[in-house]
């Protein structure tokens, strides 16, 4: 914690960091940072919006980039799809400096997108958005039977899982036997 604070104070003058941020925000010109996902499309995001992400906030604090440095070095998130990163950036912009509402109805309803979003948000450590996403997934589970849940999320049954494991073991066994046979042949 103390190292983060030191990092911040070395990058910026000491006074503004001690003053309350919300009060200082309108007076000080807002700084912007840049992020890109798998599709390499760069998104310009204000520092205020990025505060939602503990990961990016930590990176900003530690790196102490100037405006030019930030522009030249966008934060790369190669593991996040472009459209998902766009969604995250939009959410951060919408909720910049605002108290988060108890429910967010704008979250994607398709399970694939929602799960991608969950993974991205978890990686970026955006606590509030992760809470909304988890609630949304919990809502999708509600009222479903085990079979329906298995179908929707393509989860194999225990029997299917066991069969797949057995097959994989068999294959591995065969391959190992093949290798030993080949090695024995070589030795001869």
């Amino acid at each position, binding site marked *: 914690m103390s190292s983060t604070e030191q990092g911040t104070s070395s990058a910026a003058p000491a006074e503004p960091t001690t003053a309350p941020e919300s009060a200082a925000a309108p007076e000080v010109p807002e700084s912007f940072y840049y992020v890109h996902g798998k599709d390499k499309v760069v998104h310009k995001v204000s520092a205020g919006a990025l505060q939602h992400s503990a990961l990016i906030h930590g990176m900003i604090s530690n790196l102490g980039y100037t405006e030019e440095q930030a522009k030249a070095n966008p934060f790369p998130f190669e593991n996040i799809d472009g459209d998902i990163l766009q969604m995250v950036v939009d959410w951060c912009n919408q909720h910049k400096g605002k108290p988060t509402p108890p429910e967010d109805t704008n979250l994607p309803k398709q399970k694939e997108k929602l799960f991608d979003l969950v993974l991205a948000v978890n990686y970026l450590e955006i606590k509030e958005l992760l809470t909304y996403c988890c609630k949304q*997934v919990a809502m999708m*589970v*509600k009222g479903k*039977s085990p079979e329906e849940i298995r179908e929707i*999320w393509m989860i194999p049954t225990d029997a299917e899982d066991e069969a797949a494991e057995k097959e994989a073991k068999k294959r591995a066994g065969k391959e190992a036997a093949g290798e030993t046979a080949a090695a024995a042949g070589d030795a001869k």
Partner: protein
Amino acid sequence: MTISLTDIPENVLADIFRKCDFLSIFVLRKVCHQFRNFIDDVKPCTDIKSIEVNVGIKKIILRINSYNVRGSAYVKYEDHPKGCVVSYHKQGMKLPPPAPELPPVPTHSRLKLKECIHEGVEVMTAFSKDFEAVIGAQRSKIEFFRVHLVCLRRPECPTRNSPMTRSNVFSKADRKTFGSVIPYTMFSNFDTPESFTLRVLNELERTLQSHKQLLRVENFFMEVIQCKQLLQILPHIDSQYLKSIEISSPKIYPTEELKMDKLVTLDQWRQARKLELRSFYVSTPIINFLHFNSAEVNIDSVCCEDLKTMQQAFISSEKFKRFKIAYNNFEGRENLVKTFGEAETNGKWYFWIFPIPGSENVLFLNVILCHPHTICFTRCPESTPPQKGCVNCHYT
């Protein structure tokens, strides 16, 4: 590649499961072994308020109430020619729109969510697996654990509609023939309600025995026919958490004696502070009841010596509140005044006030010699005395 729910990191999965209601957790546990193990390890459900087992005729209902009124649910296990039917129900409180003059009265809405037929699975097996999961999911203490033997209750008046006394295994034609009372002879091909109940209780005992820790329950309620059924379940309750014990019989009127020699030796009995023992008479020495702060029992025979012992114990117990006895015989009732001194009386009832040294409270003794043959000790401030000659109305 499509992401599955099983690919979600564990911390997020735990977060999702914590946001699920109990019924969803119950269902998720049956999805795959990863989820089952994860739920058993993480125990994401912490808001279980009560667990209730209702034993019906060839059916068992496992009811889970959560602290969230909307989070209450029950699972019904019924016999089926192919195996058993498991249905999931949601129970919530609905407030109707308020009438112009009257305040709104909440009504319970029951919503059947899902019904699955488990082929080749017996009712008992399906129930015990789920019961095991429920008690396994318990992280902290629960307020209530109740066992109702609905199938052994006396059939109600044929003009009344009583869904709990009938099972769906009977056709409408049967119901027309027999009205709402199904004679036990109809069960010749099945278990009798008694044998079915015994099997359920054995299964409950087995599951509780196999559970690593004792069940942490504050208030325990059980309907029993004999004390030995109580002894199957009560020893598996953690006495450290137990506050009250309520024992009843599916039969309405107290006609039988509850042999409680072993029961009174249990830690659970000694640690509990509240007792309600209905539908049975007891003839255990009164000394076994004196640690309760609040009790309601039917005692076959009382005498002035017992009452004197109780008076002395309750005067010295700071936390004592109320002890109500319904009795059959009062031996030596003519010695009441001799034992306790002059009383306020009308011949049918006697009323005493005993001061408690060093306390603002006093001990009231209300003895009713006519119907309903009741004796009641109450410890409370003198300014709020119980009604003389009436033990059901607490205060005047």
